[in-house]
């Protein structure tokens, strides 16, 4: 495996690790952005250009900014009085380590049966467009409905109610 893949993976995993470890919430959000950028580079390394650029635009350009706005609106950037970890963090760590052990074992056990790379897939934007309105038109329409409902719902949920209602 190439050096670049391991470098990008290391950056991604480091970003993800810092996103769940750091005490200051805004630092966590910025480390999460680094993890997203690393993931987008991994997608680009897998020749999925559309998915990679969509990831940058949606996750770094929208979700990360949303997370940061939410942190600022909920006063998350001030230092908390108690510890930032919940009461029994060990249970969570054990569960996560267990999940990783199971997944890693499954991947390594079936390494012989997994396919190797053959041809270069061509996923031009044109083909993706044809697929979206051809084979996947129903998921596309449902996704449009879902996004509309989610946007309206999020605005209503977070709306500041007028005083004295």
């Amino acid at each position: 495996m190439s050096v670049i893949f391991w470098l990008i993976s290391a950056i991604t995993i480091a970003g993800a690790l810092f996103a769940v470890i750091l005490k200051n919430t805004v630092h966590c959000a910025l480390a999460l952005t680094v993890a997203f950028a690393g993931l987008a580079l991994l997608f680009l390394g897998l020749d999925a250009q559309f998915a990679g650029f969509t990831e940058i635009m949606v996750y770094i350009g929208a979700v990360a900014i949303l997370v940061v706005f939410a942190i600022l609106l909920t006063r998350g950037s001030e230092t908390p009085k108690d510890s930032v970890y919940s009461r029994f963090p060990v249970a969570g760590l054990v569960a996560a380590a267990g999940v990783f052990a199971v997944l890693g074992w499954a991947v390594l056990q079936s390494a012989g049966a997994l396919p190797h790379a053959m041809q270069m897939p061509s996923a031009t934007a044109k083909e993706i467009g044809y697929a979206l309105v051809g084979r996947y038109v129903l998921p596309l329409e449902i996704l449009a409905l879902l996004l509309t409902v989610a946007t309206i719902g999020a605005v209503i949920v977070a709306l500041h109610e007028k005083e004295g209602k």
Partner: protein
Amino acid sequence: MFENLDQIFILLRNMVLGYLPEPLRPFVSVVLGVVAIVAIFPGLFALTTVFERKGIARIQNRLGPNRVGPFGLLQPIADGIKSLTKEDIVPTTSNGFIHFLAPLVLVVAVFMGFAVLPMGRNMVLVDMDCALLFYFAMGASSELAVFMAGWSSRNKYSLLGAMRAVAQMISYEVILLLSGLAVVMITGSLSLTKIVEAQNVYSGWFPHWYIFTPWGLAGFVMYAIAATAETNRSPFDLPEGESELVAGYHTEYSGFKFALFFLGEYLAMFSISGLGSTLFLGGWSAPFSFLTWVPSWIWFFSKLMLSIFVFIWMRGTLPRLRQDQLMNFAWKFVLPFTLYNLMVTALWRFLGDGWERWVVCTVLVIAGYVLLGRVSMRREHFGPRSYRYAE
């Protein structure tokens, strides 16, 4: 002879690559392209600072900088020396790491946008299939750098300026995308080289630039509005308005870091003007078919400098918009009009060649503009003033 002049940079690069062994060639080719971009655009930035100051000065009936060189043209060198030698003050309570990284992230994200602009025939640094998507992805990354700058300064005014700037940039980013989408719909490709080649067709003397179509003109105007808002230029420069917010999100930066923010803002202006001229003004294609002997890169840079001139003109002429006026304008007028423009573009595509589609689309665009303006930008009528006296 003129074909050689047109391709002179490509020929120079091939000549240099000819002296090198085979395995090094792709690497050196990319490095040469990157060095060219990093050398040309900051040089253009230096020239633009002088032109801006002199242009705005002339609009305001005064002379601009005129002491440093002939007509003040060496002023950028003086500015550069000043910003490099100024003391770099970092507030003690600021978040040092993020405070240091914010201008770097901004400049890197803005430089990446230049990689996909076709600056001449065959003169793209990276010819990608999803070039437009890449450009908008890099634009989205620069918003986070603005937030980082504002938050890490631990300053109420910086944070407020950063929040306003980010809200403004996200709102107008959607409009930028939708205006560009109309062009993509007609061309059938996200690749910027294909978009320019589709506009490089001449019927008689006139080129088939997209700005000469009704939906293209509407799209270009919306794109220009969104471009001024994205780069925080007047009349949308409340986030960095000196009279309201000190200097907004770059209050706490001094010396070279401030120069980097300044560089980032102007480079963003260049790349968004370059993208606008690629999408709507035909990129490197000549305006008349008898002028195609002029090299293509001259046309691209002329269009770029024309856009910059219009930006400077707008800055000197128009008053600043308030934040709520800005956001109202974006969400209530420009965004619905851009969506309506997309539908008109679709109608253009399917009405077939002929004079009918011109008439129908022009009427639809004008009607939509007038109706939407009347409906959504209604001014509130205020009642007579009531006075309350302190008793």
